[in-house]
């Protein structure tokens, strides 16, 4: 096991098992909670892929469907077993991964054994699939009348022709109807392999003990030979209409959102950690609530407390969005575009403050086991060097983040307004 330092008094242990599973163990001796997460590299975007030289496709929502049914096997429900031992077990799906996790204050080691045993073999019944299909359809409906989601989805549909970028993670009513035991079995066989997963344990146990438990589990006997290769070729084209206004008299407020497609080619020669930070810090500098532009938009009463920014960076594409409820949405979009045309040079003292903030936030993640486990798995997924994270923040220069400015071109800027007037 390789031991690495994360902070003055925080260490993480790493080992890659023979079956390809990557294991990270982060001891938190003084905390009461123990937390374990198994992250499968299979998410909402994995609709087409290549496995053993053959091409396959899956209905939208397959990863999410699997997440719903995976705790049930041969009539037994892992949730019940864990509840009996006062542990919480749950899962969620993102565009990139499916994450299964549990936490407990007692019985952690036997629960970890049981958790891994479950992942070594599952058998999901037709009855379970039918039951969860009904529930998932209700889940899809739940989010449909959320205004923010509607505008965000519409904007991404304009920005990217490829549905993998924006399709609902849960799929559609039609696609969910197409998911059956055959589809799920295929997805498990291809994606649920140790060499396509990482395991992160944050606990008050000795790391060696935890590693021994993992190594002795059935899960470690699953040998992975073939490598899964998701066919993630994205059509990053944009729709011809760049600005959309939709009128709906039933709305009580208007919401406007502007998106910028980020040209990742600008960062070809830059290290992954630095690239991500450069993009994030650039937009933070210009559009966070500490920015001058925020102050301008606020002062002109074009935004309110629903102001929101988001930076998404994947291996294949990246974008930034900024939006708000607004009493004057058209003027808001026009004003943001004006501000984008006249972005001011980076002031060093403000840039330093943003770096300070990022350092403080990172240290703050260690406050509880849930938060740090989540952040570490997220950083690992994004290929960020967690051992030198603070050093990269400290060393980044304003010139590094200025590269992002070159992506601000009219062809990369799109907007969507949903308004009641």
């Amino acid at each position: 096991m390789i031991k690495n330092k994360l902070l003055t008094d925080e260490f993480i242990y790493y080992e890659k098992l023979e079956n390809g599973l990557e294991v990270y163990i982060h001891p938190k001796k003084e905390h009461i909670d123990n937390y374990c997460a198994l992250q499968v590299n299979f998410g909402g975007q994995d609709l087409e892929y290549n496995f053993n030289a053959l091409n396959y496709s899956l209905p939208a929502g397959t990863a999410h469907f699997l997440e719903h049914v995976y705790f049930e096997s041969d009539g037994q429900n892992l949730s019940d077993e864990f509840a009996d031992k006062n542990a919480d077990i749950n899962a969620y799906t993102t565009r990139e991964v499916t994450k299964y996790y549990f936490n407990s204050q007692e019985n952690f080691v036997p629960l970890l054994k049981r958790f891994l045993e479950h992942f070594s073999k599952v058998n999901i019944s037709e009855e379970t699939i039918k039951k969860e299909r009904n529930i998932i359809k209700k889940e899809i409906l739940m989010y449909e009348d959320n205004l923010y989601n509607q505008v965000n989805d519409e904007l991404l549909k304009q920005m990217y022709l490829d549905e993998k970028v924006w399709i609902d993670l849960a799929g559609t009513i039609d696609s969910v109807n197409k998911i059956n035991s055959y589809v799920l079995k295929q997805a498990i066989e291809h994606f649920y392999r140790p060499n396509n997963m990482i395991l992160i344990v944050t606990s008050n146990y000795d790391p060696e003990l935890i590693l021994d438990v993992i190594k002795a589990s059935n899960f470690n006997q699953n040998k992975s030979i073939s490598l899964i290769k998701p066919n993630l070729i994205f059509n990053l084209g944009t729709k011809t209409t760049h600005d959309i206004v939709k009128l709906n008299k039933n709305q009580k407020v208007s919401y406007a959102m502007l998106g910028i497609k980020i040209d990742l080619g600008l960062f070809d020669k830059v290290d992954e950690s630095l690239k991500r930070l450069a993009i994030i810090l650039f937009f933070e500098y210009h559009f966070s609530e500490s920015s001058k532009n925020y102050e301008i938009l606020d002062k002109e009463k074009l935004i309110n407390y629903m102001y929101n920014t988001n930076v998404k960076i994947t291996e294949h594409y990246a974008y930034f969005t900024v939006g708000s409820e607004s009493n004057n949405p058209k003027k808001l979009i026009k004003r943001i575009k004006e501000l984008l045309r006249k972005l001011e040079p980076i002031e060093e003292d403000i840039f330093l403050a943003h770096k300070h903030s990022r350092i403080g936030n990172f240290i703050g993640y260690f406050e509880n086991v849930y938060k740090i486990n989540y952040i570490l798995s997220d950083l690992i997924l994004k290929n960020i060097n967690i051992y030198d994270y603070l050093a990269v923040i400290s060393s980044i220069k304003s010139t590094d983040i200025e590269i992002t400015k070159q992506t601000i071109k009219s062809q990369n800027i799109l907007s969507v307004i949903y308004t009641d007037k």
Partner: protein
Amino acid sequence: MDYYSKTINGIEVNYLKINKHKHIIVAYNFISLYDYQTFNERNMIPNILENNMRKYPTKDKFNLHLDMLYGAIFKADIYSRGNLLANNFYLKFVNKKYLRDQINLTKDAFMFLNELIYNPKTYNNYLTQKSVNDQLYEAKDILKTFNQDKPTHAYINFKKAILNDNKKRLKIYPVEQKLKDVNKITITKSYFDMLNNDQMKIFVIGDFDSEEIDNIIKSNLRPRKITQIQTLKNFNNNNNKINSNVKDIKEVDELSISRLYLGYKVNVNFNSRLYFALNLLNIIIGGYSKSKLFSVIREELNLVYFIYSSYNHDTGILYINFECEPVDENKAIDQIKSIIDAVKHGEFSDLEIIRAKDYLIKQFKSRADSLSGLLNLSILADIEENQRFDLDKTINDYKNITKADLVEASLLLSLDTIYRYTKKDDYND
């Protein structure tokens, strides 16, 4: 953890010394008697102070200063419980041990809170007209957001329906019908009441040097008279009127799914045996993924994606919330009623009680293990009980609940309101 208190310059300072966290929290708590007439003003004060500092007069400058303090987090909360209301201002910042800079953020944190609370921009001794106008403008936006967001709209209209005989217990900001009465005179009066007449307490949590903090407070916080607001009035507010007729209210709208609430009224004294029993009963009924509602309504009948129950002593209501297709509304309601009836007849197992106790105790332990959770528990214990948070006592209070207590508590539940925010479709037309 070492917990001790001192009175410095008329202020009760509570020290919770705990060395496993990497941040420190300093919180100023101003406790007053809850007053429906000034509820809007009390809720507006934090934002006015945040946006009206002399030293950091704009939002970007305010946030930038917090960024410079290594991402210090400022929060202002309102705790309204029983007959009390507390304005809480807190700053969470990195312990200097973890920074390469030779910077000590502790004094900066106190200075920042002092500046924010005690030195806002004023004009002719009033908080500025602009700051008040901004809050009134924002309050109107909030009301529109509430109407737009379907789950929030349903929640507020349910609360209004069940508490229509006692609007003062609603406690949802902003109170629309009182906004017309808000002006710079009323807000300034509430602000000075907070400064001069409230009971003030400070909480410091983390790995700090208490002598350093004593000195900072002595030198920088003005002496104030000791007030005992908490003992002025009985904390309990358990005067819910129990109705014999169930209100069934339907609101039809363009929705993707129906949102429903069932509200049960229940009156018990705070911190009594039945209070703890009700909290535990809530877990058994719908407080977690192994609850009766989740197991039957979602897992067995597949009528919903989520369903849960929530008990709040302050309103004297236990409510059940779920979302479903219109065609399933009545089936779900009937099932819920029969689950509650069964509970009243003692139809729940010892295993269900043990699981619920374990779950609840685990949640308390987990919250007490985080810095923010510990602050929250400490402040609530202070407001609600006028005493220190005691994890062992809390655990015992729940461990001692018997099945008979749970049945006794359940018999107090009286269904008052069914509120349906219903999807317009063939079934409802």
